[in-house]
C-alpha cells in the first residue's frame, strides 16, 4: 500500500506524524517514535514566554538587590556566559536530526511579536526540516477586533518568515475569527501549511482552594469532529499543506481526516495514553481498510470527502445544523 504523503514539501512515508508532546522531549523518545513508524516528528515547543520569562526573571533576580547595601553590592555571583536563548532546544534539534532519519519539525510557540521570532533562524541552522509556528492567543480584550487578531497572527508569521527559509506551518486555535479568512490570509503571508488545531486548554476550578487550576485533558476520539469539519472546509480553499489532529486514536480516525483533505495526521494523546507502539496499530488499521476498499494509495482518497468534493456540501454548513437537531428529535 502506498501511504506516501507530502507535507510542507517533505516526502513522508505515511501521513502519520507525531505532533509536539513530551514524547519528543528526549532523544530516546524521538528514536522510539521513529521506530514505531512516525513519518515525521514535531518536537515539543520552544515557548516565547519561557524564553522571555527565564531571561527577565534571571536579570531581575540578579539586579533587584544590587548596589543597595554597604556590606554587599550583590547577593548572587555574576555569571557572564549564560545560556540565555534556546541553546538547549537547538542542541535537541541537532541531536534529534542525528538520531532520526525522518523529518524533524521544530515548534515555536508564542502569541506576540518579539525577539523570539528570530530563533527561527537558529532553528534552521540547527538542522530542522520545517517549522511549526504555534500561535496560541487567547484574546480577552473587548477592544481588540477580529481584524486586529488576524493582523497579529500575520505579523508574527511574517517576522518568522523573515528569519527563516524553512517551510512554515501555522498551528491555529479552533476558536479565533473567521477561520477560512484567517487561513487564506496566513497562506498569502507565506504559510506553507496550516495545522488544525491547537488544543484549547481551559482551566478547571479547584473547589477546595477556590482558584482556577490548570489541568490538561488528553484528546479523545470525540474531539476529532472539530478538525475533521474544518479540514474538510479548508481543503481546496487554501493553497497550503493541511495537517490535522486532536482526537486521532485509531486508523479510522486518521482515514477520516485524510478523506477530509489532510496531508498529515497528527498524533499525541493516543501515544501518551496507549504508548508509542500504538502508532503501528493505527498504521495497520489504515492499511487494512485501504486494502479492503481497494485503494492503491492514500493520495487517491485524500480530500475526497472535503466540502468541495463530497456529495452534499451543505453537510458542512447551517443546513446540517438543522438536520442534526432534527435527527436527534426523530430518535
Amino acid at each position, binding site marked *: 500500500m502506498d501511504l506516501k504523503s507530502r507535507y510542507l514539501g517533505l516526502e513522508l512515508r505515511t501521513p502519520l506524524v507525531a505532533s509536539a508532546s513530551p514524547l519528543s522531549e528526549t532523544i530516546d523518545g524521538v528514536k522510539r517514535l521513529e521506530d514505531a513508524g512516525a513519518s515525521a516528528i514535531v518536537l515539543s515547543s520552544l515557548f516565547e514566554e519561557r524564553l522571555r520569562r527565564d531571561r527577565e526573571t534571571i536579570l531581575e533576580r540578579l539586579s533587584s538587590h544590587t548596589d543597595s547595601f*554597604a556590606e554587599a553590592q550583590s547577593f548572587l555571583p555574576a555569571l557572564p556566559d549564560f545560556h540565555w536563548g534556546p541553546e538547549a532546544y537547538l542542541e535537541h534539534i541537532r541531536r534529534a536530526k542525528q538520531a532520526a532519519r525522518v523529518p524533524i519539525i521544530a515548534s515555536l510557540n508564542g502569541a506576540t511579536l518579539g525577539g523570539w521570532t528570530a530563533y527561527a533562524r537558529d532553528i534552521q541552522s540547527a538542522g530542522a526540516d520545517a517549522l511549526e509556528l504555534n500561535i496560541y492567543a487567547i484574546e480577552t480584550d473587548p477592544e481588540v477586533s477580529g481584524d486586529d487578531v488576524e493582523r497579529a497572527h500575520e505579523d508574527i508569521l511574517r517576522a518568522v518568515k523573515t528569519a527563516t527559509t524553512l517551510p512554515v506551518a501555522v498551528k491555529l486555535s479552533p476558536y479565533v475569527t473567521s477561520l477560512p479568512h484567517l487561513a487564506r490570509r496566513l497562506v498569502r503571508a507565506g504559510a506553507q501549511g496550516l495545522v488544525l488545531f491547537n488544543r484549547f486548554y481551559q482551566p478547571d476550578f479547584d473547589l477546595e482552594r477556590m482558584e482556577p487550576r490548570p489541568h490538561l485533558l488528553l484528546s479523545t476520539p470525540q474531539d476529532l469532529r472539530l478538525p475533521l469539519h474544518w479540514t474538510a472546509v479548508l481543503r481546496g480553499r487554501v493553497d497550503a499543506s493541511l495537517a490535522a489532529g486532536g482526537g486521532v486514536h485509531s486508523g479510522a480516525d486518521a482515514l477520516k481526516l485524510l478523506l477530509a483533505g489532510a496531508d498529515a495526521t497528527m498524533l499525541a494523546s493516543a501515544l501518551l495514553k496507549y504508548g508509542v507502539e500504538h502508532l503501528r496499530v493505527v498504521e495497520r488499521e489504515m492499511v487494512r481498510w485501504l486494502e479492503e476498499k481497494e485503494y492503491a494509495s492514500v493520495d487517491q482518497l485524500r480530500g475526497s470527502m472535503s466540502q468541495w468534493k463530497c456529495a452534499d456540501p451543505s453537510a458542512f454548513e447551517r443546513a446540517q445544523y438543522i438536520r442534526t437537531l432534527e435527527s436527534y428529535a426523530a430518535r
Partner: protein
Amino acid sequence: MPANKSILDGNAAVADVAYRLSEVVSIFPITPSSAMGEWADQWSGEGRANLWGDVPLVCEMQSEGGAAGAAHGALQAGALATTFTASQGLLLMIPNMYKIAGELTSAVFHVAARSVAAHALSIFGDHGDVMAARQTGWAMLCSHDVQEAADMAAIAHAATLEARVPFVHFFDGFRTSHEIADISLPDDAVLRALLGPDAGRAHRERALTPDRPVLRGTAQNPDVFFQSREAANPYYDAAPDVVRRAMARYAKLTGRDYGLYDYHGAPDAERVVVVMGSAAQTVAATVDALNARGEKVGVVKVRLYRPFDAAAFAKAFPAATKAVAVLDRTKEPGSVGEPLFLDALGALERALSAGTAPFASLPRLIGGRYGLSSKEFTPAMAKAVFDELAAPKPRARFSVGIRDDVTGLSLDHDPSFSAENGDAFRAVFFGLGSDGTVGANKNSIHIIGEGADQHVQAYFVYDSKKSGAMTVSHLRFGPKPIRAPYLIERADFLACHQDSFLGRFKMLELLAPGGVFLLNTSVPAESVWASLPRADQELIRAKKLRVFVIDAYALAREQKLGGRINTVMQTCFFAISGVIARDKALAAVRDSIRRSYGKKSEEIVLRNLAAVDATLSRLREIKIAGEINGAAAAPSGFDAHAPEFVSRVLGRIYAGDGDALPVSALPADGTFPTGTARYEKRALAQDVPVWDPACCIQCGKCALVCPHAAIRQKAVPEELLAGAPADLPSAPAKDLEWKGHRYLLQVSPDDCTGCGLCVDACPARNKSETGLKAINMTPIAAVRERERRRWARFVELPETDRARIKPSAIRSQQFQQPLFEFSGACAGCGETPYLKLLSQLFGDRLLVANATGCSSIYGGNLPTTPWAKNPEGRGPAWSNSLFEDNAEFGLGLRLALDHAELSARGLLEALADRLDADLAREILGARQDDEAGVREQRARLERLKPALAALDDPRARRLESNLSALSRKSVWIVGGDGWAYDIGYGGLDHVLASGRNVKVLVLDTEVYSNTGGQKSKATPRGAVAKFSNAGNPSAKKDLGLMAMSYGGVYVASVAMGARDEHTLRAFLEAESYDGPALIIAYSHCIAHGIDMGLGLRAQKSAVDTGRWLLYRYDPRRAAAGEPALALDSKAPQSAAFAARLADEGRFQMLARAHPARAKELFARAAEDARARRALFEYLSARPSGPKEG
C-alpha cells in the same frame, strides 16, 4: 582611554595584582574586604592564569582563623599564598601571623582596614584592626588611594620575597576599598620585572618536603627562646631597604615614584602633619591650598609603618620644622598616645640623638585622632590641625572631626574651608537602593572615564537599612587626577531620584551657586515649584539654581522597565549636566545599553533605548518665577512623641544628622534603650494590605508571617470598643475562649514594606469574588490616612490578655504582642518571622545572644532597634558579641543566670525563717515551666520584697539585688548559618554538649547573607552562591543530625512557610525542655534569587521536594522508650525535584550557565534528599535508648 587605564575600585585593583602574584588563596568573607576574595574565586573559576601561567587555587575557609591557618600551611609547603581580610578577621589571624613572621616566611595579607568592634560593631573604615596586628612581626605597607593600592600590593609581594618578612598591605576600608577611580594597573611585564626571574624560588626551597626533611615549629625553653627571637633582627633591619629598592624598580617600570615616607609641601615648612592612609591625600590637598595662601606647611605621608625606619622617617622632615601633629585613625584608650604618634615621637627623638635628624632640636609633637569608623576627614579638618599647630599652646592630644564636649579634646573646624579646585566636575545623586541609581552612576563613570578620557572618582554612601535603603553617590570628573577622598560638599549637579527625600535631607545645601538640580517627581512640571519645601525654594533662589524635573517612574512604567529608573535618570544627567558633550554622551548611553543587555535580551535593549528617547522629550526645566510659598517643614519621618533621648539622639541620627551629635549625646558604654524602631515612620510601601473582616477566618497566619510585625491582631472586650470610631473595623471573635470579645486585625501603613507575604499566607477567599482574600494589597495613597488613624487607635487598645491566650495554636498565639517589630530587614525577609515568634512567646523573660550577621544588623544597627518592651516594661535583652563566639557568649549568659539563681536560692533558704517561710518555700519549689508559672513566681517575689527590705542583714541586701534571678529567664542564642555551620560551629558544638539550658535558633538562609551570599556549609548541593559560582558541588551539612548524636539535645528542623503550626510546636517544646535545644529554621532570602513576596512558597517547595525535612528530636521521648525523632514532613510526592529547584534563581542560574553540570548536581541533590529521608525514616521508627549526657 590609554590601554592600561582601568576604572575599578580599590578591592578590585588589589585583588587583580594579588591574584596574579599568588598560587594559593584562602578566603573568608568580611566587609569591606569580601570583594577581593570574590574576585579571586571568580577568576580561578574562569581559569584565569597568574603571572606564571597557572591558575591559583582558591579555597573558602570556615573563618579568618582558618584562612590564616590554611595560608600558613600553604606557605610552609612552598606556595605563594595570600588572603584578604579586615577587622575581626585580621584579629583572628593574629596567632598565625606570629607564627608566619616568626618563621620568616614570605607572604602578603591584604587588609581593607576597618574598625574593630568595641562598644559597638562598625563595618566602616579605620586603622583599629591593623594597629592591633602591628606587634606580630609583619611588615606593614599602607596605600593612600586606589592607584597606590594596586601599586603597593605589587611592591609588597615583591619585597616579601626578598626580605622574608611577611607583609600586611592595607588601605582604608570603604574610602579606598570601595572608591572607584581610573588607575593604571601594572601589567604582567611590569610585575615580572619587579619580582625578577627567580621570584619565589628561595621561598620554595625553604618548603617542607620529605625530600629534604626539616623540623619547624619547635617548643623552646628559657635557655634559647629569647636568643632565637633576636636572631631575626637582621631581616627586620634590612626590610626597609628592600622595600625602598622595590619602590625604585617600580618607579622605573611605571613612572610612579613612591617613598617609604614622602614629604609634600613647602620646603621650609614649620608645621608638618604626619598621616597614613587616604587622609594623606586630604592633608596634601589642604597643604597645597594653605601654601597657596602663603602659609608654610607640609605633610609626611607614611607608607611603611612596620618596620618603622626611624632614620628615613626623620629625614623626610624639612629642617625648619617646628611643630608636628601626628594623626592616628585609631584609638588606644589609656595610652600616652596613639601608635603612629608614639612611633613618630620615638623615631624623631632617636634620629635627633643619633644626629641624623634634619633639625637641631625636637619639634613640638602633638597627636590626634580622626576618622574612626569612616568618619569624614575633610580639608577643613586638616586645616584645623595646622591651625592648632600654629597656636601658642597646641593641645598635646586632640581629636578632629567631632565635637567632644565631654573631655574637650576636639578641634573646631571651619566647614566653609574647601580645598576643592575648579578642575573637577562634581555630581551628587540621592537614590533608593532598589531604583538603580548606583548602577547607573557606575555606568556613567565608565562612559566619562573611557569615552571622554576624563579622570573619574566615585564613592557611594549607603544607609543601614536593608529595605528602602537610601544611597548617595558622589562622582567627580576632571582633566587632572582626582585626589579628594572625602564626600562632595559643593556640587555642580545634584539629582534627587525620590521626591520623598525632599525636606527630609538638606541636599540642596550641597549645590554650588548656579548648579543644576534634577528632581524625579510625579508632580506635574507646572506644580513642582509650589510643591517644594520652603527651605529648598529659598536655596534655589539664593543660589540661582537651575531646576529640571522628570516623572521617571511613569516613564519607566510606560517603557516596561519596572521600578528601575536608572536609564531615565542617567539620560537626564547627561542631557543637562554638561559634564561631557550631550550628543556624545547620549550616544555612549545608547551604546552601553546595547552592550549591557544586548547579549541578554534584545527586548530589554529596545525598551531602554526607547526610554532614552522618551526621557529627552519629557525632561523639563521649570521656571523659578514663583513666590516662596512652600511648606515650612517637611515631616521628619520620626515619631514626634518619642521619648527625649530617643528623639534628641536617635531621631537626629535617623534624620541623617548624626555627625553633628556631640560626644555627650552618646552613651559611653554602647548601651541603648530598646523598643525604638516604632518611632521611625519610614512609609516605604506602595501597596499595603487592608483587612476584610467579613471574609476573615481569624487564623492569625498573616500576622505570623509578617516580617516587620506590621500586622497585628487583638482580642478586645466588647465594652472597650463601645466608644471606638466607626471606621475601626472589628468582627466578633470567632473562638469560644474569646466570647464577649471583638477581633481586630490592623496594618501599620507606615511600617509595612509592602512585601505581600501576608496576602500569600491568607487561606480565606472572598465568597463573591474569589480573587480577593481576607487581606488584600491596596495602593497606599487611597488608604494611607485612614489606616494611620486606625493604627493609632488600634495601638491605644490594650494588649490581649495573655492569661487567656493559648500559645499552642497560632490563631490564639498570635494575640501575643510582638516584642520584635519594624526592623530594617529586607521586605519579605524569611528570618524575622521566627524572631518575632520567639519574642511573642518568651520575650518578657528572654535574653538574646545574637551572632553577627543580618540578624545583628537589622536587630541592632543604630539609630533604632526592633527589640521592644511590653506594657510592663519587660522585653528581650539583646546583645551581639562577635560572629565566631555567639554560642559561647550565650552560654556565658546562662552560666551567670544559673549562678545568680543558685546564689539567690541559698540566700533565700538561709533567710527563709526570718521572712515568710511559706512564701519562701513556694518560691523555692515553684516549677515555672509555663508562662503562668513564671507570672505567679514574679508575683511571689513581689510579695516577698517588703519583708526582705525590712530585714537588717547584709545577706538580705545581696538577695534584694539578685531576687529576680528566682524568676525563670530564657537564653536564646540566635544567628545565621555562617555562624552555626562554619565560624561558630566549634563553639556551638561545645555549648550543645554542655547540657546547659540554652536554646539555639539558626536562621538558615543557606549562605552568608549579610556579606552578600557567599557559600556556607549550609548551602545545598547545586546552588550557585558566591565562592561557588559553578554550583556547590557538596551536600549540605546535616547540623541537626550532628546535634542529635549527643542524645541529650532537643533538635528541630522547621519551615514556617511549609507548616506554621509545626514551627510553633518546636519553639514551645524547645523552651520547655530542660537542657540544650537547637532549632534550624529555613529562611528564604534575597540571596536565593526568588520573588520575596512568595518566599513562603519557596519554603513549602523545599519541604515538598524533601530538600528540607521537618522533624523534632526530643530526648524526653527517648527516656520514655519511644523514638526520640519524629519525622514531620511527608515523603515527597512529586518527582519533579529539578524542576522545583529551578523556581529559585540560585539553581536556575546553574541550569542556564552550565546545563550539563546542573543536571548532574541536581540529580545528586535529589539523591541526597532521598537518602537523607531514608535515614530519618529509619531513625524515627526506632526507640532511642537514653544516652548518658
